């Protein structure tokens, strides 16, 4: 059941849509090429999960966004995610941006925070240097399809030596399964800059009884000495298929932090990769996932070391209920010449039902002798000794298990940089774990 994107038609359609939106020629061309590629390339093939069995065809069609004039006009599901008094917020609803708010103070420092469509028009040259440079449009059908149809999105540029104190927040909201929902997030942190970016991907469960797909790509460029903290929570309804590819290229002494909450109710492909290009570059990735019903999750973290003395750490924690499954891949690759590199990864799955499935696959690929690397993986159920210990203090079995499960996820949850998002994550976990 693969997408039969009839090449000609789609190329024309992609180009026509791009032109109708007034996109620059280079982008129109890029979309056309990508559409053609999407017709010939195959879907990505993650380990042990056959995504081609998922409903990948429901990419919908473009829906003209209608901007709102106040946050109060946004749907409840969006409003509850907004940090009170925030100055930097972009909201995408279905196919385009409906709210765009950015502090003039940051703008005056040369920081750019806008939707990517606007950025392509207003900062075309800058965007062109980076767009689809970390993730190539011709990697597979997913990247090509995304390149052809992406919409809304985010562009962040932080100039040299500028430190953005407050988090930049984005919310991607879907309440129309017929609408193409394919944000692209592009973050460029120039030398010695610093920025925290936080987003949520959410769909209106009531409104979305039809299948839909969220093909998204994140590209982050961490220039020498820069520090980017990226945090995202995905909470789409059961009918949604999430395919999110994230990639970062980290230069000398750059630091990348990924904090990812894969909490969708539908099938999820989540692939997060750091390319540690520079000497002394550093990447830290933390991923949590909770699966329920018959949901399938393919969660991959990767670190590829080119730089000397580069350092990576990857932690994935997944809790699987019912007959949900999580295939967790951790790949640490250390290239020849990356001396003194250090790569560590941990994948743990907690299964709450006999039918739940967890699979942790740590992989170390090392082509250099002078390195250190380590991995730990475990798949198991709630430890009965721990439950007994807590119950022996009068805590009920249900509460004991709850404490243990939250404790299992705590190493990631406690790292979420924005209070409102952390609170949202807590509520979400409660809903998913106890619902």
């Amino acid at each position, binding site marked *: 059941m693969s997408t039969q994107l009839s090449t000609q038609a789609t190329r024309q359609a992609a180009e026509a849509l791009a032109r109708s939106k007034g996109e620059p020629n280079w982008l129109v061309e890029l979309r056309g090429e990508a559409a053609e590629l999407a017709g010939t390339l195959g879907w990505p093939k993650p380990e042990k999960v056959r995504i081609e069995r998922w409903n990948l065809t429901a990419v919908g069609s473009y829906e003209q966004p209608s901007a709102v004039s106040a946050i109060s006009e946004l749907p409840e599901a969006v409003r509850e995610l907004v940090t009170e008094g925030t100055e930097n917020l972009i909201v995408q609803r279905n196919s385009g941006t409906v709210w765009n708010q950015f502090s003039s103070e940051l703008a005056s420092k040369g920081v750019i925070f806008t939707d990517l469509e606007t950025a392509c028009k207003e900062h075309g040259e800058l965007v062109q240097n980076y767009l689809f440079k970390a993730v190539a449009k011709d990697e597979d059908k997913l990247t090509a399809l995304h390149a052809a149809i992406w919409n809304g999105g985010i562009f962040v540029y932080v100039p040299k030596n500028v430190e953005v104190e407050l988090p930049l927040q984005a919310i991607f909201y879907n309440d129309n399964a017929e609408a193409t929902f394919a944000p692209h997030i592009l973050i460029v942190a120039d030398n010695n800059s610093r920025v925290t970016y936080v987003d949520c991907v959410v769909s209106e469960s009531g409104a979305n009884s039809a299948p839909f797909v969220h093909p998204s790509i994140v590209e982050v460029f961490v220039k020498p000495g820069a520090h980017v903290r990226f945090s995202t929570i995905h909470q789409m309804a059961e009918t949604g298929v999430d395919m999110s590819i994230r990639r970062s290229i980290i230069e000398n002494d750059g630091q990348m932090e990924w904090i990812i909450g894969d909490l969708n109710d539908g099938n999820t492909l989540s692939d997060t990769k750091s390319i540690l290009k520079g000497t002394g570059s550093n990447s830290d990735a933390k991923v949590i996932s909770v699966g329920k019903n018959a949901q399938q999750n393919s969660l991959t973290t990767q670190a590829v070391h080119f730089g000397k003395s580069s350092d990576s750490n990857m932690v994935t924690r997944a809790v699987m209920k019912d007959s949900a499954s999580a295939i967790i891949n951790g790949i640490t690759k250390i290239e020849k010449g990356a001396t003194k590199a250090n790569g560590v990864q941990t994948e743990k799955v907690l299964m709450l039902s006999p039918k739940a499935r967890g699979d942790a696959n740590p992989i170390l690929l090392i082509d250099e002798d002078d390195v250190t690397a380590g991995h730990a993986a475990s798949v198991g159920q709630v430890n009965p000794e721990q439950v007994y210990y807590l119950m*022996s203090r009068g805590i009920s079995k249900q509460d004991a298990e709850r*404490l243990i499960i939250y404790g299992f996820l705590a190493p990631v949850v406690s790292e979420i940089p924005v209070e409102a998002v952390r609170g949202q994550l807590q509520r979400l976990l409660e809903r998913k774990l106890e619902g």
Partner: protein
Amino acid sequence: MATHFVIDGLKAAIDGKEILKGINLEIKGGEIHAIMGPNGTGKSTLASALMGHPKYEVTEGKALLNGEDLLEMSVDERALAGLFLAMQYPSEIPGVTNSDFLRSALNARLGEGNEISLIKFIRKMEGKMKELEMNPEFAHRYLNEGFSGGEKKRNEILQMMLLDPSIVILDEIDSGLDIDALRIVSQGVNAMRSEDRGFLIITHYQRLLNYITPDFVHVMMQGRIVKSGGPELAERLENEGYDWVKEELGIVDETVGQA
């Protein structure tokens, strides 16, 4: 109500192998009982079976706390009924802070609608921690994770102090404790002595009993209490070991359930 705890003909097995072969013991509020005995005689099994450890199967007998049979209850119900076991090997629970755990436990004990406010709880916890000379940072550490043996034992006593149980079992609370820690832990226990509370102290060594004076001392061998007496019995065991007891009772191998 005055605490009254009766263990009546308790038999328990692990993996189908009988370890406890009929334990009878009566503890009243205000009393401290010590159970001594060499390794492998069933002392810790008694503690675990009373608390309801899932690996131990009670095959016969009763454990009546103020008339209610604990053995009919789930583990949490036993705790709420007033039983507390300071464990020899407390579990480590990553991601759950000590203070969150303590508050959950205390609120479970107080019952719905009577929960303690956060401020009151913190004040109470900090006060008890001070008595036990615990570093305040232990409140924010994950439960028992990375605690030394002595720190875990102090944390057990901290829980006992907060939960105010009516029957306390201390399972080898003295193992892994240096003299200072032993003194502090013993002070904690002594401060909890009251007419409403009974203690059952399980130990290898008489050392602990220099700090906590028992009213009754029992010797356990082969899964039974084979000899009972007053504090002088503990002293004699300290001085002469267990051989004379074995000789007196004609026991060759004191252990039970060993392969």
